[in-house]
């Protein structure tokens, strides 16, 4: 029971950060800032949701698998941030809001 409550709290925290990332993506004025919002907020949101699911799931292999998925998403998202940032830097800004 206590694990259920903990899981709900952590998942809600994750959902909050996902919402923050999406709001940032929609509101921020330039593409660098949008990149910031997504990379940081979404990774943190995924981290919290994975942690929440760890409390809900039972066995050690499941926890290892969840951890692996989170690590892969973290590395992927962080490199994606670098690559897209690099791309923006090299692209002459034709259309700026």
């Amino acid at each position, binding site marked *: 029971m206590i694990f*259920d409550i903990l*899981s*709900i709290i952590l*998942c809600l925290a*994750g*959902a909050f950060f*996902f*919402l923050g*990332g*999406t709001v940032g*993506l*929609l509101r921020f004025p330039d*593409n660098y800032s*949008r*990149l910031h919002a*997504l*990379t940081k907020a*979404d*990774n943190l*949101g*995924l981290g919290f*949701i*994975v942690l929440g*699911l760890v409390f*809900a*799931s039972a066995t050690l292999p*499941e926890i290892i*698998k*969840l951890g*692996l*998925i989170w690590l*892969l*998403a973290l*590395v*992927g*998202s962080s*490199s*994606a*941030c670098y*690559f*897209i940032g*690099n*791309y*923006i830097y*090299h*692209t*002459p*800004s*034709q*259309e*700026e*809001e």
Partner: protein
Amino acid sequence: MQIFYLALASFLILNILAGLWRVIQGPTPADRMVSAQLFGTTGVAILLVLAQALEAPYIRNAALLFALLMIMAVLSFVRKTAPQQSQAGDEK
């Protein structure tokens, strides 16, 4: 508990729908790609939550694949569309 996870998954799907607005709006290809990054991370979260809600552990494999595909998508985008960067095949 199951209801909670299903609600959480629906909420995350709403996030993806909101991200679609940015894809349509643009204004640059990079913005659209940033939304693709959103789809990747949020998609992983949705699949993990669904795996818990439906008690179907095999959905986690799809989540793993999603995380892999996101980085592939971004890499191919950067490689294909970057201007005058034709150094294919060197270290990343």
